[in-house]
């Protein structure tokens, strides 16, 4: 038997790997045959070389297998066809597709916007190394009425004793925000710089302790990280700040340059650090050394040895050691503060760095905080809106599915499995979702722009960030799966024998139940929002229209410069009184109703020793008449040069045990251990926002404090009159206070500001309402469109048999009206509960009564009827001939 030889295996394997499978076998055969012939003719070496050359020459485009597959063993072509068919379907059903895309676009846009906001707010100060060990010290001071006030700015000695006495910490740093005018000590540089983040009141200049740089790590571009602030009167700048001050001067030349704060404090630069790139609340740019506090200039401004509440100035940061716990340190604080209990009753504790951005309760907080519950409710709203859009999708696709029953039948007969059918319909959903996502992403920036007042500046969508990409992919996938899963299940379940015979899919009750259920769910959500916006707008109207107990119309508030002489103020008062257009002028400390009126403590005689927390309002004899506060008993304050008598409100009178206002007259009130008689009782008026109940209050005349003018004009509606009056007041002002600029506010405007956050809630809820209503309505529109199409023959026959247009419209609409009524029944208790929760924040609020729900119900019914009737009227008006002709 003849012996056959194998050519070099490696090359044969290589050939088998690259060769197109269709050609592989016979070319291989040729190669082997030829090789064996060569072997016998010219020997092994010759044959091998020829074989290898042949293989290498075979490595060319015609022979190599194509990269994208050759036999359609994968589903590449099928998936391509899914997309093609999907796109054709979308294009064919233009109206349905538009409805679906609109809904999904809104939903996705809302969720991306809210994601952008939340991820921004959650990104603050998360880049610091060891951040879980970094804490801010908060001090609590308990007021006599039990309110605990949180302060972040604390006595400077607390920081100094903490440095020595706190065990378990690695570093403790004090930080004193310092607002100053900044100048550069250069001959040719007359520029002045701000020490705030532009447009805000957040200070960027701080007097800082060296250990601050042990807690928060910076990259040092110049100077010594451990000693830069030890040098007397030194300052460390961030890179961006340094370039603002010195332009493009090289870093080593900046060291040693001098900067002047407030024309008095001269410090020299000892270090330049790189700015942090992440979002931070601690965006300080100038770090002045702590030893600057010893200069006479700062000694006068900052009392660094005092424990008093008025001198609290210092922010304290602590970094725990590896084994330290915040509880242990909190306990140590007590030892430090106890010896000073006579000066200040302070409980200090550590607040984690991660909580800092969300703690809105800190008084005089030097950083911008975000409201965590608002963020959460925003996220909730986003999810609801997206859910509504998804429901729409499910509704419309299942409704439409019957039209595709034949397609499913044919596909199944041709051998399509349920899996691949589901996959096909999911691909269609995916296509729609992709279109919607692209549109939604395009909408994000305009939306962010629209809600500028709502959101902190600097927020924008960064599409290329990995987190954003992950989030978007997730949104697309979840939306596709949620909205596509059920319809694809329904569609793929059709039996070919039935659907091809024309019987269509089961029109059993269950599917209609589901669709109706979804509509009810949608409308319940929208109704909750509708009710919410009605209640909120009613409450806000109430706060604006309710009688405050005083009259705030056409009152102008003008503050005289701090520390002006009494004589000048009264002179201005008298001058302004003479100006035509001005009806009255009062001198006051603060207006009757302000945001942060803190209580003063008063003792009164009859039930001795009992202290009452009383809001004190100070004004001269013109105060009560100007604000038209009603006097119930006694008289107005008399003209006086010092504090002589009290006018109190009804509430205080009652607290003093007086049954009638008159009984309070003549009683003695003790304040700072001095007795004063009560000369009048006024009707209760609101001294704080409606969030709080009316507190006991007294009106006193304290000329030393009355530096503000309240100017009552006859009217502020006539613009030209207002202008001349204003010009006259200003000229009077500049005569008396030539150095100061004239500034004024209208009192009713500043009152409206008290409800700013409520206004924002209102805007938010109104927007959400609009979106949810819109989505629900387009969903309803789609379903109506479908039903009237489905029932077109029935409608035509009814018309022939004598049904009127009204009959048919009612027939088509009443089902939906019923659904909305059910939704109303479901939504009302939910809305009632939620809105009561919200109203609890107001001490004075409207009561939710049936009228709110009637209004919400009627408005949504009207919307439903408008949405439904467009289609049903159209259906009722079509000539029966058109629909029946095809039979």
């Amino acid at each position, binding site marked *: 038997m003849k012996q056959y030889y194998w050519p070099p295996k490696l090359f044969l394997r290589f050939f088998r790997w690259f060769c197109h499978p269709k050609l592989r*076998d*016979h070319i291989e055969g*040729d190669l082997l*045959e030829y090789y064996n012939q060569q072997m016998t003719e010219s020997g092994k070496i010759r044959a091998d070389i020829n074989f290898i050359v042949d293989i290498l020459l075979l490595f060319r485009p015609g022979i190599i297998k194509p990269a994208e597959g050759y036999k359609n063993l994968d589903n590449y072509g099928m998936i391509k066809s899914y997309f093609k068919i999907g796109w054709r379907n979308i294009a064919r059903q233009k109206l349905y597709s538009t409805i679906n895309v609109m809904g999904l676009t809104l939903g996705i846009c809302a969720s991306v916007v809210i994601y952008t906001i939340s991820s921004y707010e959650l990104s603050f100060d998360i880049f610091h190394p060891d951040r879980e060990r970094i804490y801010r010290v908060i001090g609590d001071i308990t007021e006599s009425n039990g309110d605990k006030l949180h302060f972040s700015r604390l006595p400077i000695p607390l920081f100094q004793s903490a440095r020595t006495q706190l065990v378990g910490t690695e570093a403790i740093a004090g930080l004193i925000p310092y607002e100053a005018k900044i100048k550069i000590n250069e001959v040719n540089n007359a520029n002045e710089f701000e020490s705030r983040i532009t447009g805000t009141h957040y200070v960027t200049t701080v007097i800082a302790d060296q250990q601050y740089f042990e807690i928060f790590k910076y990259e040092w571009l110049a100077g010594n990280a451990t000693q830069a602030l030890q040098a007397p009167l030194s300052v460390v700048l961030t890179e961006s700040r340094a370039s603002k001050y010195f332009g493009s001067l090289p870093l080593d030349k900046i060291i040693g340059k001098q900067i002047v704060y407030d024309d008095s404090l001269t410090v020299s630069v000892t270090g330049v650090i790189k700015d942090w790139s992440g979002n931070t609340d601690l965006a300080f740019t100038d770090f002045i050394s702590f030893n600057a506090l010893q200069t006479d200039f700062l000694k006068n401004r900052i009392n660094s040895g005092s424990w008093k509440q008025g001198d609290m100035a210092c922010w304290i940061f602590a970094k725990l050691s590896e084994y330290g716990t915040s509880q242990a340190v909190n306990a140590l604080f007590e030892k430090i503060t106890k010896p000073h209990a006579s000066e200040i009753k302070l409980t200090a504790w550590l607040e984690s760095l991660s909580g800092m951005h969300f703690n809105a309760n800190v008084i005089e907080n030097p950083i911008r905080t975000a409201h965590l519950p608002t963020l959460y409710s925003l996220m909730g709203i986003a999810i609801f809106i997206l859910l509504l859009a998804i429901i729409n999708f499910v509704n419309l696709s299942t409704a439409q599915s019957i039209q595709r029953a034949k397609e499913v039948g044919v596909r199944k007969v041709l051998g399509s499995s349920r899996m691949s059918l589901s996959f096909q319909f999911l691909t269609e959903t995916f296509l729609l979702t992709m279109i919607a996502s692209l549109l939604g992403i395009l909408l994000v920036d305009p939306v962010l722009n629209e809600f500028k007042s709502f959101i902190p500046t600097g927020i924008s969508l960064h599409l290329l960030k990995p987190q954003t990409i992950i989030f978007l992919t997730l949104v697309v996938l979840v939306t596709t799966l949620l909205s596509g899963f059920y319809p694809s299940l329904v569609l793929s379940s059709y039996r070919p024998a039935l659907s091809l015979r024309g019987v269509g899919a089961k029109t059993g009750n269950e599917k209609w139940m589901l669709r109706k259920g979804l509509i009810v769910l949608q409308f319940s959500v929208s109704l909750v929002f509708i009710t919410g916006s009605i209640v909120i707008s009613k409450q806000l109207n109430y706060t604006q229209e309710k009688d405050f107990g005083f009259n705030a119309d056409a009152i102008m508030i003008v503050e005289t410069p701090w520390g002006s002489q009494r004589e000048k103020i009264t002179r201005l008062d008298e001058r302004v009184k003479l100006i035509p257009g001005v009806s009255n002028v009062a001198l006051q400390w603060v207006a009757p109703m302000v945001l942060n009126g803190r209580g003063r403590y008063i003792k009164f005689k009859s039930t001795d020793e009992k202290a009452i927390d009383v809001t004190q309002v100070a004004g001269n004899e013109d105060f009560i008449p100007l604000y038209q506060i009603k006097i119930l008993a006694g008289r107005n304050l008399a003209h006086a040069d010092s504090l002589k008598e009290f006018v109190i409100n009804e509430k205080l009178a009652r607290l003093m045990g007086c049954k009638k206002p008159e009984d309070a007259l003549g009683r003695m009130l003790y304040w700072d251990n001095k007795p004063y008689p009560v000369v009048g009782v006024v009707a209760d008026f609101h001294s704080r926002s409606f969030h709080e109940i009316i507190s006991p209050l007294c009106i006193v005349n304290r000329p030393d404090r009355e530096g503000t003018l309240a100017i009552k004009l006859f009217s502020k509606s006539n613009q030209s009159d207002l202008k001349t009056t204003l010009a006259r007041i200003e000229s009077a002002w500049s005569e008396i206070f030539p150095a100061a600029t004239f500034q004024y506010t209208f009192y009713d405007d500043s009152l409206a500001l008290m409800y700013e956050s409520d206004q924002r809630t209102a805007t938010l809820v109104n927007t959400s309402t609009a979106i949810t209503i819109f989505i629900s309505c387009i969903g309803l529109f789609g379903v109506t469109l479908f039903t009237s199409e489905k029932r077109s023959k029935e409608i035509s026959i009814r018309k022939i048999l004598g049904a009127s247009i009204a009959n048919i419209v009612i027939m088509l609409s009443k089902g939906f009206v019923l659904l909305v009524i059910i939704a109303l029944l479901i939504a009302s208790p939910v809305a009632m509960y939620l809105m009561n929760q919200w109203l609890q924040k107001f001490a004075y609020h409207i009561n939710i009564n049936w009228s709110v729900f009637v209004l919400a119900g009627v408005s949504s019914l009207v919307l439903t009827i408008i949405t439904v009737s467009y289609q049903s009227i159209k259906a009722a008006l079509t000539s029966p001939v058109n629909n029946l002709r095809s039979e």
Partner: protein
Amino acid sequence: MKKYQLGEFEEVVILTIGVLYKDAYGVSIRKEIESRLSRNVSMGALHTALVRLEDKGYIKSFDGEATEERMGRPKKYFQITALGKRAMEYTKDTRNDLWRAIPKMALNPKIAEL
């Protein structure tokens, strides 16, 4: 556009297939060309030409027997199709036309130099 696309080497291959008639497969075609035209033919060039000819529809293939010599791999025989025949004739005719169009003098160097 040209009516029939047939490259030089493709023409050689298809002609050889015709020569071999019922015995035209890779190795035999290669040997035939090598012996008749005394030029080296690589497997790569040959099979690319075969694939292209088949794609153009000038030849068709059918699987043949698997011999021991080929370690059990099947042979693939090629045959000229009607379209292939037309393409060959067309090429041949155009060549003939060109031949005929050449003036006699042009090919006679002695005359051409005059």
